[in-house]
């Protein structure tokens, strides 16, 4: 496992991963988001039933783990970062920017068919 990176480092690497899909013309970027729980070792997942509800109300907020990876055969990249509970909002604001900028391959709008119906409606500022 690679060491978790700082947010800025994560975002810069993530945007280069998105850039690669653009320049290469193909590729896939995977992003995984999950709770970071140190205590849960693989064996503890099969503990007795009373303990399974303990995770619903943690004593204190837990950090999130964000992973990013690509499936390109030549340069397989893996990176991760840890988001502290208090940083969630700030992180996702930047995350949205990077994703919006990176996922430029998606369709802007279906103009061909609905040209007459939808003229305006720009929500993004």
């Amino acid at each position, binding site marked *: 496992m690679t060491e978790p990176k700082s947010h800025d480092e994560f975002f810069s690497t993530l945007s280069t991963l998105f850039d690669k899909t653009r320049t290469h013309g193909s590729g896939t970027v995977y992003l995984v988001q999950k709770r970071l729980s140190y205590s849960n070792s693989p064996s503890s997942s099969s503990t007795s039933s009373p303990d399974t509800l303990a995770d619903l109300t943690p004593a204190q907020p837990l950090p999130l783990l964000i992973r990013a990876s690509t499936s390109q055969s030549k340069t397989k990249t893996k990176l991760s970062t840890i988001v502290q509970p208090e940083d969630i909002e700030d992180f996702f604001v930047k995350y*949205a920017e990077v994703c919006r900028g990176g996922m430029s391959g998606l369709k802007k709008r279906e103009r061909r068919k609905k040209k007459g119906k939808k003229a305006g409606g720009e929500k993004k500022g």
Partner: protein
Amino acid sequence: MPSVNPPYLATSQEWLQQSSLLLKARPTTARITTKYSVLSPKAIDAKIQKSRAISKKRKPKSEGKEAEPEASDAPTKEIVPEASLIVKTYCPESGVCLKYKTANEREVGRLVAALATLGRPMAGLEDMAEDATKAMDIDVPEAKAAAEPTKTTKPAQSGGGGGGGGGGGGKKKKKGKK
């Protein structure tokens, strides 16, 4: 091993709702995977060829002959790289899998916002949606107060029968007739 792909949910809103329920139930094991993939023109071409081969098989023989010239014309048009975005919430413990797929750029912002709201129960924080509704409730009483009198008069009207209803406004009478 029978691997049946779970169906995609119809709207991102539905995905968000279902996912937030899943995350509330299993905040430790549930994970959200976002997959952004760009298919190269080559891959799209292969995909199209494959789908054509399937459609040819399905068609009766007489129609298949007619369809052939059309198929040969189609590849000449330019194929633009095709991108798609898939969000998946999966819980290995319960086996629940919720997926949503889009090719629309406008959904990106919405989905990342959804990831942020889902991140809160994941981190063990209070749900932002609940906070929002709580905040809404503070503002709502005025609207509720305006709405409630009409609701409360309805049962009174039905209970009072014809005698009590006579004194009411014309609006109430009309409602009763409908």
